[in-house]
């Protein structure tokens, strides 16, 4: 009898192989987080002994943690992926940043950046690491999510998915987002990382880090671009991160957990859901659905 993790792994590998067999130019979106780490690991397994037959695409905001950039380079090198880093030139030219531009920061760097990158390289299928357990509207997302040539997601017009049969056919210009780890939960991800010894960004582990407390959230001072408010001075705290994104937008939690079992233990005993750490989701409960319609994952 296969364990639940073996079944999830086999399903994800099956999905990745279907995409490679049926699409012309797939790409794997790489966010450098723990879900991405699992995706890379699965891709390496799915196509072994070949190296994965698609590149990695990092849609960069220029505001990620330094440790994430280091991890990105290391993983691409070790697993033999070609790495494409894309930064929206307009966001760059206008100096869009999380301090001055609020949600425009995410819209331009991530949402627009992703569309631009997919158009520029002509990718017809993009793997994403979204999971159905993350948010209510994602519970209904298909594994193969169909997008028009304008990258629009129409929740009323998605294809039924029966058995293991995925329909990847599409017209010129249309594209697919494919979510191979749809059926994994956060606990599955952590258990798999633990079992398979998958490298993750050290920021997930607790360490002394310079942070400031702002509106009840601990923000790490990751580089000299961090703007301190009057009266704020960075202080060293033993913290770690439950999710990773742009460092000025990502809340740290105080923690002693510096091994994987301790991280899992902390997660299991904690009482707030994972996405709380991401500032972009705080608006309203239907916000993710709106973002999806606009092309954000």
């Amino acid at each position, binding site marked *: 009898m296969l364990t639940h993790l073996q079944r999830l792994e086999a399903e994800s590998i099956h999905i990745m192989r279907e995409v490679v067999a049926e699409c012309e130019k797939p790409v794997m979106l790489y966010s450098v987080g723990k879900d991405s780490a699992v995706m890379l690991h699965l891709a390496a397994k799915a196509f072994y002994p070949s190296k994965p037959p698609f590149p990695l695409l990092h849609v960069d905001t220029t505001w990620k943690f330094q440790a994430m950039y280091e991890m990105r380079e290391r993983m691409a090198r070790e697993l033999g992926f070609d790495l494409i880093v894309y930064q929206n030139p307009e966001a760059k030219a206008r100096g869009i940043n999380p301090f001055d531009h609020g949600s425009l920061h995410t819209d331009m760097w991530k949402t627009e950046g992703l569309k631009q990158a997919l158009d520029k390289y002509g990718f017809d299928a993009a793997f994403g690491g979204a999971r159905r*357990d993350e948010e209510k509207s994602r519970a209904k997302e298909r594994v193969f999510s169909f997008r028009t040539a304008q990258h629009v997601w129409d929740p009323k017009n998605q294809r*039924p998915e029966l058995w293991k049969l995925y*329909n990847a056919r599409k017209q010129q210009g249309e594209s697919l987002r494919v979510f191979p780890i749809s059926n994994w939960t*956060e606990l599955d991800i952590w258990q798999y990382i633990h079992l398979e010894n998958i490298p993750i960004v050290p920021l997930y582990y607790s360490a002394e880090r310079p942070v400031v407390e702002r509106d009840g959230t601990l923000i790490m001072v990751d580089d000299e671009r961090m703007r301190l408010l009057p009266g704020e001075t960075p202080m060293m705290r033993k913290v770690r991160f439950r999710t990773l994104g742009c460092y000025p937008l990502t809340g740290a939690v105080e923690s002693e957990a510096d091994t994987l079992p301790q991280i899992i233990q902390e997660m299991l005993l904690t009482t707030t859901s994972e996405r709380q750490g991401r500032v972009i989701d705080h608006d309203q409960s*239907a916000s993710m659905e709106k973002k999806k319609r606009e092309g954000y994952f």
Partner: protein
Amino acid sequence: MAHVSDLIATDIDAYLEQHQHKSLLRFITCGSVDDGKSTLIGRLLYDSKMIFEDQLAALEADSKKVGTQGGEIDFALLVDGLAAEREQGITIDVAYRFFSTDRRKFIVADTPGHEQYTRNMVTGASTADLAVILIDARKGVLTQTRRHSFLVSLIGIKNVVLAVNKMDLVGYDPKVFEAIVADYRAFAAEIGITDFLAIPISGLRGDNITSASDQTPWYGGPTLMQHLETVEIDEARLQAGPFRMPVQWVNRPNLDFRGFAGQVASGVVKPGDAVKVLPSGRETRVARIVTKDGDLGEAVAGQSVTLTLADEVDCSRGDVIAVAGQPPEVADQFETTVVWMAEEPLLPGRPYWLKVGARTVSATVTEPKYKINVNTLEKLAAKQLELNEIGVCNISLDRPIAFDPYEANHDLGGFILIDRITNATVGAGMIRFALRRSQNIHWQALDVTKATRSAAKGQRPAVLWFTGLSGSGKSTIANLVEKKLQASGRHTYILDGDNVRHGLNRDLGFTDADRVENIRRVGEVAKLMADAGLIVLVSFISPFRSERRLARDLMPEGEFLEVFVDTPLAVAEARDVKGLYKKARAGELKNFTGIDSPYEAPENPEIRVDTTAMSPAEAAELIVRMMDERAPDYSI
């Protein structure tokens, strides 16, 4: 996030060790909007401690704002997803939820109870090991209970739980429960559900969900959760079956390695096992089972692996590798059950893509033998299938495939149908059995061939397919073209829409389904005539792109020339040579192309003639010239 376990706090390593070995059960819940389905799922999540404090706080706030429980916690709000649905208070799609206990991880497909959403329920059920059928204790077995049970049986779910809900509202009365169970048992036997477990529950109050209820001392069976944790999953049955693996992808990193990647659909495979590659039937042995973690000594149903074979046999995506002594059948015609999932009806004769396992082939569906009324289970005559209708149809493929009956193996017997124009998934189906005739009738290989017949006539055969509105001038122009060809010594024949309808197609009317069949027959006749070496001129309105494509696909590349006789509707209607437009406008003729039935103009015809800019003689001249230019072989 997970259920509470003391081990988490005291010995996390022991906890992880325990939880690595959990199995996975996928199930669906079926019931109508009012049966308390969302409440039950919300309760399962809540009782297995899958809800965080922040979610609970949001739930409490939402319950006060839009809840239906008078300010008390409304568990249904936990599982309703898309914003529009939440406002309507109903779920309208398939949603997947996750929870786990010490023994198992669960994936629940939440499927709607609404009449028009058979499609969603079949989708959710297709991956489930078990179905929970909810009944409102106050209402008993309803039409929708029958419908859900029939679909569960159709999709082949072996484990059925009858959850008699809202027992609190009937005073936990055992007589009510027993009467419902007896009623259901009688009905279930009719549709082949011989075994099910009935549990009296209250999703709202939590009775017999995770712990046995004090209110039902007369019930001695397991709670819902106990049953979910211990019921046997399909995987065990699949592993005991014969080995099959559809090949998804051929892995060729270099000239020395050729691996066949796929997910084992049933059985067990070991290095050295004798296997067959189907449909070719070539035999060889498994050399290695390759994974990134090292070669395996065996692989079982459910695992994704890469096999290498001992011999250099032809094997590509879509082929099936199977145990040599017990291979699946190979056939190209089947009796199937089809569930239609698109707004556009299933049109018999129209070609669709059919995907089964890793293979996609061209398929045509015959007229349904019957459709099934899912409420009464009556078999009804049908010409086509509409959205959410289920019918038994024969399917014919353009080439043979390896398959197992759906009942024996879902991976090798379940298929989807894909529209060739929109690429939408429009239907799903299950292979019941292969039609005998496909195994016994083989295409006869003959010594006198199309090439020898064509050579005797000194021409290369072709099909000139004239399409355009009624009264556009198709027949007139086709006649002139034929005269010109005859004059230059060529052998021709005209198939005219009106004439064919007097004979071969006299049994067909003008519905969409009949139009498709009309074109299919004419396409086949044209093909036979071209095979005889003739140049065939087909003059048919043929309003649908997909049917013209069907005719085109019958012919070798370059032998099919689409001639678009382009006459605007206003012009054709003004001419109205046969007086048909007048009748159609008066409502005396139904389904008349251009008036109340669409005409889909060709996007890339080989030849287009604009009859407002040239005379029929000029058009004929142009067609013959372009035909000769495109393929000089046509001239003697």
